[in-house]
């Protein structure tokens, strides 16, 4: 490895760490932001946990499928909160009117995206770790007992969340704050299609095709197979991984193209509507 290459990598790492530091300072300075990250996943988990508790005590099948709902809620939150963590960090720059400063700095778009990806994991950890511990305390559901399977589920879900986050950020760069609602709502399009709470077989056959084209579907099916049949479906994880590679690449290419288009349209100077 040449000295110039090493120096370029070190500079790049420094810029990524600068952006992480910026968002870490922000989170540290604002308890409402920290509370916001953790409170909704907790509400979700508690609501679905009690519902499952009630059904399990009345129906044999659900008694066997213990943990399906809470598992689904926790995995859905990884997907949703992962994307939100990415998009909100990006939106913070627009709300702060700081995007212009970043765009004229030596920060590369890919470094910006890398910093936002890491920050989405930090935000996810702040929000989800306490919730998973509460799930153990309240309902005896230990998501960490899924072991390596959890790592596979997490990797696939976070990749999908980043793909959506990157695409939304590109649209925000190109179209300004008028597209902000996409950051909050786009992921909900995936909720019914990825079969978070029910098997894919529940959908009409034509919709199943759509469902199987989305990586999270494989994760939620895999989770149900693991919790109900105690079977880890590595085949499902590999298919999810392959689809994620396609979606992630497409999202990065779209982001770069939207950035290029924003330069042509002059929209980088405006961060308003």
């Amino acid at each position, binding site marked *: 490895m040449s000295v110039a290459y090493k120096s370029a990598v070190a*500079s790049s790492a*420094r*810029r990524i*760490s*600068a*952006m992480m*530091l*910026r968002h870490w*300072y*922000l989170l540290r*300075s*604002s308890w409402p932001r920290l509370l916001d990250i953790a409170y909704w996943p907790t509400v979700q988990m508690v609501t679905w946990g009690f519902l499952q508790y009630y059904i399990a005590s009345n129906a044999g099948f659900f008694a066997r499928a213990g943990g399906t709902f809470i598992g689904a809620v926790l995995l859905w939150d990884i997907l949703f909160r992962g994307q939100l963590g990415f998009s909100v960090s990006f939106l*913070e720059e627009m709300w*702060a*009117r*700081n995007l*212009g*400063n*970043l*765009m*004229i*700095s*030596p*920060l*590369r778009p890919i470094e910006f995206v890398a910093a936002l990806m890491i920050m989405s994991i930090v935000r996810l950890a702040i929000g989800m770790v306490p919730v998973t511990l509460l799930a153990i305390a309240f309902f005896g559901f230990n998501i960490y007992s899924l072991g390596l399977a959890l790592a596979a589920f997490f990797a696939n879900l976070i990749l999908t969340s980043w793909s959506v986050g990157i695409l939304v950020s590109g649209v925000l760069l190109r179209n300004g704050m008028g597209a902000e609602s996409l950051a909050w709502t786009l992921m909900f399009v995936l909720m019914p299609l990825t079969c978070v709470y029910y098997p894919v077989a529940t959908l009409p056959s034509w919709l199943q095709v759509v469902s199987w084209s989305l990586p999270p579907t494989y994760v939620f099916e895999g989770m149900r197979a693991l919790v109900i049949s105690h079977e880890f479906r590595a085949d499902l994880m590999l298919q999810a991984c392959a689809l994620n590679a396609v979606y992630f690449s497409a999202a990065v290419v779209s982001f770069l193209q939207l950035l*290029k288009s924003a*330069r*042509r*349209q*002059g929209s*980088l*100077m405006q961060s308003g509507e």
Partner: protein
Amino acid sequence: MPQSPPIAVERFVKIYKTDPAVDGISFTLAPGSITALLGGNGAGKTTTIATIMGLITPTSGRVTVLGAEMPRQRYRVLQRMNFESPYVEVPMRLTVRQNLTVFGKLYNVDDLRKRIAELGHELDLADLLDRPTGNLSAGQKTRVSLAKALINNPDVLLLDEPTASLDPDTADWVRGRLERYCRNRHATVLLASHNMTEVERLCDRVIIMKRGRIEDDDIPAKLLKRYGRRTLEEVFLDVARGNGGEAREAAQ
């Protein structure tokens, strides 16, 4: 090999959809010069500055900074440039020191602590370094933005109304600091401003734009003579109101 000019704009055109914002302008800035870009609203100043910073792709023509074509080769030179504008802010929740640390790292500044201490001293920010930027007064925030713009000791500095919304005393103080920085560093500055006092004090060249074109371009003394006026404000008004030709003829 001749040194590339700090900023060179050649037949630059920018058309948004069908509206030309800048219509074939050309100019070159000399190293160490302070140049004002003047013009009414919609004259094309912001588009020109944004293109020089690499934020906008020209429809045609060529814009280079320190020899690098913008925006295509921007990463060759962004480390040697910076920008200050009241319309772009540094994050308000972060303290001044945190903001300067973040931007210092983005610009890969060596010995960042020392540089922040220097800027704290030079811009009278030492006592404010650990206060949230959002809690500062307008004048203090402008000094923070200026500190951010100088964090990397830029060779090319772009300023968009650097003293807008400041009281006359603070504005004068800021101008003094800018003047001193440019003199010491031999930095090249392009300044967009509506404040003619500022332009007269700081700038050794004035480019006046109107409807995307350069209407006039000279040193302030020659402009005053050419239009037969005592202040640049009067020259600006002549050009903005379309009386520039008459004023020039009358002066001759």
